[in-house]
Structures are given as structure tokens and as C-alpha cells.
């Protein structure tokens, strides 16, 4: 078990290293190779050659690419100094450089955005798992009834409607028409838990709808299959009440494979979060990323990509470890 744990963690670290290489390669090396000048992006087209040269030295853009990558890594782990002669700027670890546009450090900028996206993602995940699994189980138990067909039709809609559509629709109905909810907005949880909740409920529902639909269909299929298993018959033959047979023996077998799917979906969730933040005008990582892409703000794009990658790698690590705990055949095999 311990060696499995260590192996998984080492794997995760290597994956992250590769991710930094690829993103660095794409976002820094490519402009250099293609001749578009990051220094120019940084300082603006009107800059005179001298200050352009100064910026280039300070950002280390004249160094060979491997050296730049080394400095970038060092900045992530230990922080780094940007120096041009006596002009020294220190950037604390984890240093992601400076925004080309605002000239602010990228790290604090992104860190302030993380709670927004995290609140959105976690809230939506809880909603979709609860509703998806509950709908799936009910559908399986009431197979072929009106309830089953209605739920599965709803699920089909959930899978096929884009967030732009469902989000706008929800916005229109619940905020503009009915006025049941205030404008979607992020209020820090610690400041005002109720405000945090009401401000996010619509984005949660919108984002969760998409995934809940997938989970409902998956749960239903898994449950129908599981109910035909011999060990369910054994559970019944022991005289267990039907709710224990389904709620314990059935659900345990249904949820286990769902954990893996859940891990994979977290990546997709980030993409969904970008769109949701856009629709509801929430200033999270996704919003930041879109703005940065529009403005060609390379360090910010790199930073968001890296954070997203870390997020996915860590979630997958957790899911792997969790899976080995809940499936004894993996743990011991």
C-alpha cells in the first residue's frame, strides 16, 4: 500500500513537470522561435530600443531556452529575481512572472481568483453527484415507468444543451424575470455565507445540470446491471430489507466505478467553469483566462494553465488513492 502511494505521488510529480515543460514551451519558446517579441508584448509597440533591450535582459529573454526554463522552474519553487544591472525586482515563490498588461505579479492575481472557481466547482460537483446519483437510482428502480422516462429525457436534454444556453435561460428566468435571486456574484464564504450561497446557486445549478445528466444515465445503467448480480441475490437471501439491499449492497457497487469517472470529469469541469463564469460574469480563473487570451497576456495564460493542470493532477491522485481504498481488489491485487 505504501509503495503504491509513493509510486502514485512520484507519477503525479513527473506529470506536473511535463506539464510545465509543455506549457512553457508553447507560451514562451514559440513566440521566440517565430520571431514575435515577448518584450514588445510586455512594454507596448511604442517602446524605444533601449528600454526594449532593458526589458529583454530583465526578463531573461536573451538566455537560451533551456536556461529560461530553468529560471522559470526555480521561480516556481524558490522565487526569482528579475535583474537589469541595479534594477532588481524580486518575485516570491511560486513565481509565475508579471502580467504583460497590468505589470502585476501573476501569482497573487490568480490566487485571489482561486476561491471563486473552487467554490463554483465544488458546489456544482456536490449538486451533480447528489442529484445525478439519486435520479439514476430512482430511474433504475422505477424502470420503464413514467418517472424513469421523464428523468431520462431530462438527462438527455442536460447532456446535449450547451451551458451558454441553459445559463442564459436560467439568468433570464430567475434573475431578470422572476427576480427570485440577486445577480450572480461571488461573496467570500467567510464574509457572508448566505450571500456566497445565493450568489452562486444559479451558476452551480447550470454547471451541475450538464454533469448530473451524465451521472444519472451512468448510475441508472450501473444500478440495473448491479441488481442482476449474484451478490445482490445473496443479500436478499439473507433477509435484508430491500432498502439495505439497494442502498448498501447495490449503491456500494454502483458508486465505486463512478469515483474514477468523477476524477476524469474534473478536467471537463474546469472547461465548464470557464463558460459558466463567463455567462454569469463571475471573476474566477476562467474569466481571467479568457481575458488573458484576448489580450495575449502570456504569463497569465501560462499561470492559469499550470493551476488547472495541478488541479487535475491532484484530483486524479486523490481519486486513485481513494479508489484503492474503496475497491479492495485494486488495493490488494
Amino acid at each position, binding site marked *: 500500500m505504501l509503495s503504491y502511494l509513493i509510486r502514485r505521488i512520484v507519477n503525479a510529480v513527473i506529470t506536473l513537470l511535463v506539464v510545465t515543460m509543455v506549457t512553457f514551451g508553447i507560451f514562451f519558446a514559440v513566440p521566440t522561435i517565430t520571431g514575435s517579441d515577448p518584450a514588445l508584448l510586455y512594454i507596448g509597440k511604442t517602446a524605444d530600443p533601449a528600454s526594449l533591450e532593458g526589458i529583454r535582459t530583465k526578463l531573461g529573454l536573451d538566455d537560451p531556452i533551456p536556461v529560461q526554463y530553468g529560471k522559470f522552474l526555480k521561480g516556481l519553487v524558490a522565487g526569482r529575481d528579475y535583474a537589469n544591472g541595479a534594477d532588481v525586482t524580486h518575485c516570491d515563490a511560486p513565481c509565475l512572472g508579471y502580467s504583460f498588461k497590468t505589470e502585476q505579479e501573476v501569482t497573487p492575481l490568480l490566487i485571489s481568483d482561486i476561491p471563486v472557481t473552487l467554490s463554483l466547482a465544488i458546489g456544482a460537483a456536490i449538486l451533480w453527484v447528489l442529484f445525478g446519483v439519486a435520479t439514476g437510482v430512482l430511474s433504475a428502480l422505477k424502470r420503464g415507468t413514467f418517472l424513469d422516462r421523464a428523468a431520462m429525457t431530462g438527462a438527455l436534454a442536460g447532456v446535449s444543451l450547451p451551458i451558454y444556453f441553459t445559463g442564459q435561460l436560467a439568468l433570464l428566468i430567475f434573475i431578470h424575470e422572476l427576480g427570485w435571486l440577486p445577480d450572480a456574484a461571488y461573496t467570500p464564504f467567510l464574509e457572508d455565507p448566505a450571500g456566497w450561497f445565493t450568489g452562486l446557486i444559479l451558476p452551480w445549478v447550470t454547471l451541475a445540470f450538464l454533469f448530473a445528466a451524465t451521472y444519472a444515465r451512468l448510475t441508472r445503467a450501473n444500478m440495473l446491471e448491479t441488481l442482476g448480480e449474484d451478490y445482490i441475490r445473496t443479500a436478499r437471501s*439473507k433477509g*435484508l430489507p*430491500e432498502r439495505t439491499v439497494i442502498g448498501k449492497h447495490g449503491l456500494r457497487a454502483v458508486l465505486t466505478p463512478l469515483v474514477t469517472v468523477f476524477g476524469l470529469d474534473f478536467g471537463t469541469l474546469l472547461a465548464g467553469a470557464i463558460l459558466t463564469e463567463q455567462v454569469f460574469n463571475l471573476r474566477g480563473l476562467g474569466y481571467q483566462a479568457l481575458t488573458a487570451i484576448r489580450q495575449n497576456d502570456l504569463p497569465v495564460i501560462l499561470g492559469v494553465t499550470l493551476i488547472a493542470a495541478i488541479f487535475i493532477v491532484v484530483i486524479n491522485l486523490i481519486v486513485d488513492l481513494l479508489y484503492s481504498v474503496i*475497491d479492495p481488489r485494486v488495493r490488494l491485487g
Partner: protein
Amino acid sequence: MSTDSLAGLTMPAGPAKRPFLEVKDLTVRFNTDDGVVKAVSGSSFAVERGKTLGIVGESGSGKSVTSLAVLGLHRTRSNATVAGEIWLDDKELVTASDEEVRKLRGGKMAMIFQDPLSAMHPYYTVGAQIVEAYRVHHKVSKKEARVRAIDMLARVGIPQPEKRFNEYGHQFSGGMRQRAMIAMALVNDPKLLIADEPTTALDVTVQAQILDLIRDLQEEFGSAVIMITHDLGVVAELADDVLVMYGGKVIERGPAADVFHEPQHPYTWGLLGSMPRLDRELRERLTPVKGSPPSLINLPSGCAFHPRCPYAGRNGDRSFTESPELRGGVHAVACHLPAEDRQKIYEQEVAPNL
């Protein structure tokens, strides 16, 4: 003696007390997309406490469906209909409520299944599954149930029961796994134990051990046992009475000694013919009787066995048009051949080849 008397099977005839388990005219149907599966039709039998009833027949003859019906396990299937009477210790189960039957399940009546690997939950330890079985029927703490479970594991011959208590089904060998299933089935001292092909998934030496174990435990607990198998050797060794099933019907029924020494039905002859010697231990699977088992959706007209029966033409066309009823007393048979003819055929054509 009336033709449908069952009491004679294990008890003297007459309006005596009901046998411990009495099944009368049991009929089980499944509605499927392909049509109605007549899985069991008008099956009747009885078992007393301390006795063993063997049910034999080819795969698909309705043996498992019969046993699941006794346990009331078709109730959760929306496509199943069960008719007839099932009396367990003077209580009728077909008309009993779901809750009443559930309380008997695993308590007064328990079942051992064919494939112990798939019959165990992959995500719960063996111990947890036995503890659960005990606690459904006994209001005891987890600790007490644990003691009981470990005791049961030891009783069925599992070494190091404390350690194995915490292991999962897939960590057990086939034989040990079936022992654990038996421990789980017996944890509540059931008065009726149904073993549905308990040794089919096991290798030969282990089969013998498991059968010995079931026999020993039966002696110890005094339970009624229904032993389902398609291995006649098992029946010869364990059963007091035998039921031969074909196409969802009981076609021969009687004390084991009678059925083995004076088999009456041509299908039973075929089954016995696949055993080289009656007095030799045989544990190999039966080589099936020539031809294939009937479809339970479109049963052959008349006697369901007629397409495979060498004697089908001997009664005009009765075998093709009229379904034979199970007739006789203690030893009953469902065949149109007159008893004398059967006697003659058996003595002259069949017995010499057995």
C-alpha cells in the same frame, strides 16, 4: 392412495401433520420479450426435518427457479408470477406478505449458491457479510455478531478464522469461499437449507469435502436440506428422497434407493446411463441424454420428453398429445407407458447397460 399425495414420500399416508416443507403445485412463469417462460409447472414435493431431498435434472430444467421460489426470491422480479402453495412449518409462503417472507429468509430458511465468488459482495469482507446476515435476525452488538461469525468460520473448517474474517471473497480459494458461504447460510441455524449446486464450481477433492461438511452440519443442526445438482453421484450419496425434473416438471419422485434401483422414467434411465456404475463414486458431470433440453417458452406438445424418448411411439400418439401426470404413491412417475411395460423395458433393455 390418491395420486397427488405427497405425505407418503417421507411419512405414512393419511391426514397426518403437514411435512416440514411442503410444496404443492408450484408454478413459476416469467414474462419475457420472447414469450412466457414456463420455468416450473405444477411441481409438488415435501421434505422433513433432518432429511435431504435431492433435485436432479439438466441445466435449465427449473431447479434453481424452484428453490428461489421457496425463498420467495421471485418477489423482487416484476416479470415473475408464482402460483401454488409453499408450506414451511405450517405457514403458507406464496400468499404471505413480503415482510413475513423476508423475515424467514436467511433465518428459518437459507440458501447456498453455486458460484461463491460471484455470490459474495466484492467490496465487503467475508466477516462483515456474515455479521450482517446474523444481525438481520438477531438484535446483538457488532462485537457479539463478530464472535458468532468467527465461530461459524471455524465450524465450517476455515483455518485462522480471526484473520480470514477480515479478508475479501476474492482472497479465498474456491473451496474456502464455499465454506464461508456455508458459514453465512448457517449462521442463523436455518431449519431449511437449500444448496443449489454447491460444488459445481469446485474441483473434485474439494467437492467431497464440501459435501461431507454439509452432511455433518445437517446432522448437527437437524435441518431439512434440499440438494440441487446435476450430479447423480451427489444425490446417491446424500439424498433420502429424489426429485427428477425435466422441462420445468417433476417427472419422477421417490425415495433415493427406489429411484436408483428401480428407476421408472425413460429420462431417469438416460441420466443413470450416464453413470458408469451406481455403486461407484462418480463426481464427473453427467454426459447429457441424447438430444437437447426443451425450450421452456415452446414446450413440446404432450410429454415434453417425447422428442428425445426412444419409447415415445409405443402408446399410439398419447406421448405427443397428452401431458402425462405424475402418478403413483411413494415412488411416482409421469409417463404414459404402463407400469408393466416400463418394468419389462427396464429389465431387458436398460438395466443390463447400466
